[in-house]
């Protein structure tokens, strides 16, 4: 199998579609899947496994991690793998189960896993093989030749699991090699042998059961008593046959004795039979004689009656003929009467009848005339029928004409009125327009007045404030003035005080600090109310304070005044009430104007309508005038037509209500005449017939010998009575003849009826019969007993032979089972021979395993100095443990064998690798085998030391020669340097999606 191309969409770390083209990599033999840890290298391998098998490479991985977290939610995760097997290219497309956004509504819904397998023809056309999961699985397995578990041991060595095959159990190894080398038939043979062995065992058991059953049947057939059965059960099966034989003998004996009893009974019965027969015979004879005598007597007694009957019979027979004729005659007379009555009725009276009868031609003529007249009235009748319809139609037309006339009148009226209406409307429209025009202006006024109003109101509001401020101002002025004078006062006092101080300090003759004079005439006196600087300062401060307040108040007032002035100006010095009134007026006017404007379109439309109407009016008048004229003409012509018709019909009607009535009348008259004609002829013929019959009757009577009608009538007998009489006479004749015959018979000779004792004879006969009956019963019983005994003996005999048969069969089956079981055990490896427990398939596969080991060793001995070699463990200590497919590792330096499980990680890795490559070699060499041209190794190189790594790389390099390619997932630096072809997986942003680049 060779891989061509892998496309991964929204799986693992790949948000979108990434393509790996294996063809480009195929040439160099080795390629590297490289990238930082966790970037998705294993995903590539997982995808290959997933594409083929619907599951991922290592058992531990979870399918859920297939669907990429980085993908857009509406991108379907999918893997497409193109590969070819034996030259035929295939494609498998698989999608894992995943969540996708709902098409309607929010949230996600689960989309099931899907698969499609195609065959790819030349030119890339694909042909679907299947899209069913189960079938795809089967097909892929067929193509690849391996199931998933095997695939991951041989083609794709997954991370941490490469050594599975090396360390596998025999069973697993056997399965893998079986599927690789086609040893399935041996598995089948083993299976079938096991089946046979099982069957053989079952047959033995069954046969034993059969023997038991046959025995039971034999015992039953013998119908032994309970104790006998118990006794038998005690007996040893070996002796069974003998005992059964003796039972058989006993049964035979019984048969014999029953036979003789039967014979005796039979003889007895025969004797009794003879006797009974004789007695019965005698009795019968006596009975006959007595009977005969009786009959003779009876017959003689009836002589008179018999004579009478015979006479009557003869007479009645003679009367039959004439009787018939009489009947006919009476019939003819009746017919004549009837015909006459009918004719009279039809003619009207007897006289009329006679008249018409005498003149048949006249009748015929009259009839014809009436008929013709009726026919002639035909067309008139039709016209009469049509007349009402015509009258109706006329009325309609007249109504229409009236309508038209009325319409015309209306229209003319309208025509008169319209001009005035129109001008009215025009005026209205103009008025409204005028008003509407003023809307703009009014709106402006409204705005203006509104602001004016608010200004006026504001000004009004301001007034009280102003007043208050002025009050404050006045108060402030007062305070200030007061404070200022207080301050002045204090200063004055201080000066005075100071003066007193200074005065106090003054010495006479010393200059005054103030004025410099040396004389101090008026010394100021201290005041008790000394004033300190502080006090002055504080009074000053207070005064200043009040000054500030006054200034503020001034300012306020000034401000307010200013504001007030401004507002007043804005209000144009008008008072707000006035403004309000004006504003209301303007508003009212505005509303009117707006209403007018709103209404204007409607009015305009109406005006337009009226104008249109005026135009149409003219046209209509013209049309309708014309129409009216036409109608009037038609009305007139119809009227004339109807009048004419009326006159015509009146003539034809004569004195009937309608012409139709008259015609009907004529018709019925004609029919009557017709019938009359017929009735007359019928009457005539009836008369003729009566005459004929009368003549015949008279003739017949004479012939038969009846003189008169009453004679005849006496002799006549109804048919039934006649027949009965005839049979009585006949019976009498028969009896007579019989008696005559009997008298001649022999039986009656020799017995005198009167001297016989009938009772005695009867009694004897009965007794004899009873005896016979008893003997018969006894004989039957004996026969039955005999049959029973015979039956038992026979059944027993049959059962016996069956027992013998089944014993023989048991021996045979047992003998056959032994070799089967031996063969089955050996083939399955469950029976140990001196060679060990090597199963058939293992035996067969051993030679293949040998090849594999040789091929593996070729490479293994080139690694690590050839320290290790693989050997098949056919040299295990206990031969009985050998199972045929064991593998051991031989250390060449010590020549010791060890289990592969004891190798170190690195050693296991390269040993497994050599083994896998060896396996691939052998498979390829077997033509038609599943050639594995592409191999994948997921990690493991890190466990090797550099020198061993070198060796391993050499080995892998060497694969190029066989046209094989090996994909390596590794992060080992040395490999990166050595292998130039690679699939590079990069993740530009951490925790972001990854992308693939193929370098070849």
């Amino acid at each position, binding site marked *: 199998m060779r891989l061509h191309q892998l496309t991964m969409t929204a799986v693992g770390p790949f948000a979108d579609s990434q393509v790996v083209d294996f063809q480009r990599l195929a040439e160099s033999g080795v390629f590297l899947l490289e990238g930082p840890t966790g970037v998705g290298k294993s995903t590539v391998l997982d995808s290959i496994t997933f594409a083929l098998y619907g599951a991922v490479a290592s058992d531990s991985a979870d399918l859920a991690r297939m669907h990429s977290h980085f993908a857009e939610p509406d991108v379907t995760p999918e893997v497409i793998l193109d590969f070819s097997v034996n030259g035929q290219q295939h494609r498998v497309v698989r999608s894992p189960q995943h969540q996708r956004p709902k098409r309607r509504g929010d949230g996600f819904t689960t989309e099931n896993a899907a698969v499609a397998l195609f065959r790819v023809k030349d030119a890339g056309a694909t042909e679907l093989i299947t899209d069913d999961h189960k079938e795809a699985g089967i097909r892929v397995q067929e193509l690849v030749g391996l199931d998933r578990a095997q695939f991951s041991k041989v083609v794709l060595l997954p991370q941490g699991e490469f050594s599975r095959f090396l360390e596998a159990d025999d069973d697993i190894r056997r399965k893998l090699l079986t599927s690789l080398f086609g040893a399935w038939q*041996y598995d089948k043979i083993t299976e*079938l042998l096991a089946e046979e062995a099982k069957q053989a065992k079952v047959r033995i058991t069954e046969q034993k059961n059969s023997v038991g059953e046959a025995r039971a049947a034999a015992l039953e057939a013998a119908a032994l008593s309970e104790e006998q059965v118990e006794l038998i059960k005690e007996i040893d099966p070996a002796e069974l046959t003998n005992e059964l034989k003796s039972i058989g003998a006993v049964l035979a004996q019984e048969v014999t004795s029953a036979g003789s009893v039967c014979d005796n009974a039979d003889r007895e019965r025969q004797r009794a039979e003879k006797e009974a027969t004789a007695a019965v015979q005698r009795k019968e004879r006596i009975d006959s004689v007595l009977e005969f005598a009786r009959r003779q007597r009876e017959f003689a007694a009836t002589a008179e009656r018999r004579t009478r009957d015979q006479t009557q019979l003869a007479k009645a027979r003679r009367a039959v003929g004439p009787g018939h004729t009489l009947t006919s005659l009476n019939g003819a007379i009746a017919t004549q009467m009837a015909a006459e009555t009918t004719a009279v009725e039809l003619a009207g009276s007897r006289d009329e009848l006679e008249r018409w009868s005498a003149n048949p031609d006249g009748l015929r003529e009259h009839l014809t005339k009436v008929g013709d007249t009726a026919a002639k009235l035909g067309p008139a009748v039709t016209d009469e029928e049509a007349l009402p319809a015509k009258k109706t139609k006329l009325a309609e037309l007249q109504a229409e004409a009236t309508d038209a006339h009325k319409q015309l009148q209306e229209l003319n009226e309208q025509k008169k009125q319209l001009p005035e209406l129109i001008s009215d409307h025009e005026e209205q429209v103009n008025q409204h327009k005028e008003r509407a025009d003023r809307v703009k202006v009014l709106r402006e006024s409204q705005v203006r007045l509104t602001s004016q109003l608010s200004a006026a109101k504001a000004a009004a509001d301001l007034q009280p404030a102003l007043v208050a401020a002025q009050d404050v101002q006045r108060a402030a002025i007062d305070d200030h003035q007061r404070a200022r004078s207080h301050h002045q006062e204090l200063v004055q006092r201080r000066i005075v005080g100071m003066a007193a101080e200074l005065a106090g300090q003054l010495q006479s003759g010393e200059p005054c600090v103030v004025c410099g004079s040396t004389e101090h005439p008026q010394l100021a006196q201290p005041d008790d109310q000394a004033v300190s600087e502080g006090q002055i300062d504080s009074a000053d401060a207070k005064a200043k304070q009040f000054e500030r307040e006054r200034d503020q108040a001034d300012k306020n007032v000034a401000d307010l005044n200013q504001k007030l002035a401004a507002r007043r100006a804005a209000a144009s010095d008008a008072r707000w009430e006035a403004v309000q009134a004006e504003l209301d007026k303007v508003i009212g006017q505005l509303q009117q104007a707006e209403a007018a404007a709103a209404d204007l379109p409607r009015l305009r439309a109406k005006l337009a309508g009226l104008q249109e109407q005026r135009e149409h009016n003219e046209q209509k008048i013209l049309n309708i005038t014309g129409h009216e004229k036409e109608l009037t003409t038609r009305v007139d012509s119809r009227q004339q037509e109807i009048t004419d018709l009326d006159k015509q019909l009146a003539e034809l009607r004569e004195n009937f209500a309608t012409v139709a009535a008259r015609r009907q009348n004529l018709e019925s008259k004609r029919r009557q005449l017709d019938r009359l004609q017929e009735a007359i002829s019928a009457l005539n013929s009836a008369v003729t017939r009566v005459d004929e019959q009368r003549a015949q009757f008279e003739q017949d009577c004479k012939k038969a010998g009846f003189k008169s009608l009453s004679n005849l009538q006496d002799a006549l007998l109804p048919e039934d009575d006649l027949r009965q009489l005839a049979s009585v006479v006949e019976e009498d004749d028969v009896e007579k003849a019989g008696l005559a015959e009997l008298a001649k018979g022999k039986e009656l000779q020799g017995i005198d009826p009167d001297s016989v004792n009938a009772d005695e004879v009867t009694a004897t006969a009965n007794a004899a019969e009873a005896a016979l009956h008893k003997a018969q019963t006894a004989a039957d019983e004996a026969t039955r007993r005999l049959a029973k005994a015979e039956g038992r003996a026979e059944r027993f005999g049959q059962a016996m032979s069956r027992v013998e048969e089944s014993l023989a069969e048991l021996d045979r089956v047992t003998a056959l089972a032994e070799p089967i079981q031996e063969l089955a055990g050996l083939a399955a490896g469950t029976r140990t021979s001196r060679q060990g427990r090597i199963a058939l398939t293992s035996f067969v596969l051993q030679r293949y395993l040998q090849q594999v080991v040789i091929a593996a060793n070729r490479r293994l001995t080139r690694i690590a100095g050839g320290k290790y070699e693989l050997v098949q463990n056919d040299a295990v200590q206990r031969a009985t443990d050998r199972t045929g497919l064991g593998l051991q590792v031989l250390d060449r*330096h010590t020549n*010791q064998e060890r289990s592969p499980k004891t190798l170190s990680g690195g050693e296991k890795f390269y040993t497994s690798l050599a083994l896998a490559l060896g396996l691939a070699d052998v498979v390829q060499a077997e033509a038609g085998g599943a050639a594995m041209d592409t191999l994948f190794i997921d990690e493991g190189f890190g466990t090797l030391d550099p020198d061993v790594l070198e060796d391993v790389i050499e080995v892998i390099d060497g694969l190029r020669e066989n046209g094989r390619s090996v994909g390596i997932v590794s992060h080992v630096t040395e490999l*990166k340097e050595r292998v*130039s072809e690679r699939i590079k997986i990069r993740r530009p942003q951490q925790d972001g999606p990854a992308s693939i680049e193929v370098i070849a």
Partner: protein
Amino acid sequence: MQCRQIGGAMKFIHTSDWHLGRKLHNQELLDYQREFCKWLLATAQEQQAAAVVVAGDIYDRALPPVEAVQILDETVAAFAKSDVELILTPGNHDSAVRLSYGGKVMADSGVHLRTDVPGITQPVVLSDEYGDVGFYGIPYLLPDAVMAELEADRSHEAVLAAAAERIRADAGERGLERIVVMAHAFIKGGSAKAEESESERDISVGGIADASAAVFDGFNYTALGHLHGPQTVSLAESDTVVAYSGSPLAFSFSERNHTKSVALVKINGTGTVSVERLPIPVGRGMRQEKGNLEELLAQAADDPGDTRAWLKVILTDNVRPESPMERLRGVWHNTIALDFQPAGAVGETQLAPLGRLERQNPTLVTKDFMEFHTGAEPDQVRSELIDGVVTASGEEAK
């Protein structure tokens, strides 16, 4: 660019494939490699060589072990202090980028690294009494990596040819008449087959590993690296000398008989080249013995030979002896490799296809199986059974 006068004709030493850090069957070679590097400088100075050119595979791995880096560090430092120029190019084992570290700084001290494509046309120019000699370094060219830059096809031959063209063009521009080119490749010549050892790494691209020596036509001397055995590649009808210096140590037992050497190359004024091989003192020898175990042990008892040399033993016993390595090491302590070539085997077991099991006769195989276990052919009853079961199994397949 460097101009340095020496007396006489140009003399330089050509070596390659040091593989610093490489192990021989798990044996450390670092000490021997260090010794070699010291010897190299001493020899260069002794011979008054103008330069030492190392044509690739300086390290054994892209990420070499620490001790290997130390050795190169010491060596570069020693050369820097000396008069001898050192020119290094990377091989297929090296990581060219890692090796290029410090290159720009080192250039002034006489250590020149040429590790990329632009560097191909930046020669180190040394002068002797006759004029200038241009030393051009071509790093190992991986076709995939350089084919775009060199505008060449995807093969070793094509990229090398393109590089060589550029060199010729550049030399022409500079007026250099004597040219030495370093390259790391697998070059095959006209007649003699280039000899590979076990230890070279395969560099095939699309199955083709080699280029022909003709790409170097016109250069005076081409100093090659990659093959570990010293050899000259002949180029018919040309004066160009194309040669491998070989590795300084034997890296595999197949090289044990090589005389490891460096090449002392002289170019006179007219461009004539003469090459002398200077043998490298062997740090430790390598031997190989073949025979069956008992014989060899007896031989060892008699005459062990050079027990210090590393030894590879090929055992020819038909039956694997017990603990061979232990016993051999008992007499030859330095046995480091063991191989088996049983005398009875006729060449390597061929993997003849057994054929699909389906085509074999299952009845016969099953009967064989029974015989294998019971030791006797199946009797009538058993044969019939087998026949029946095999037929049934075959039919069920259909």
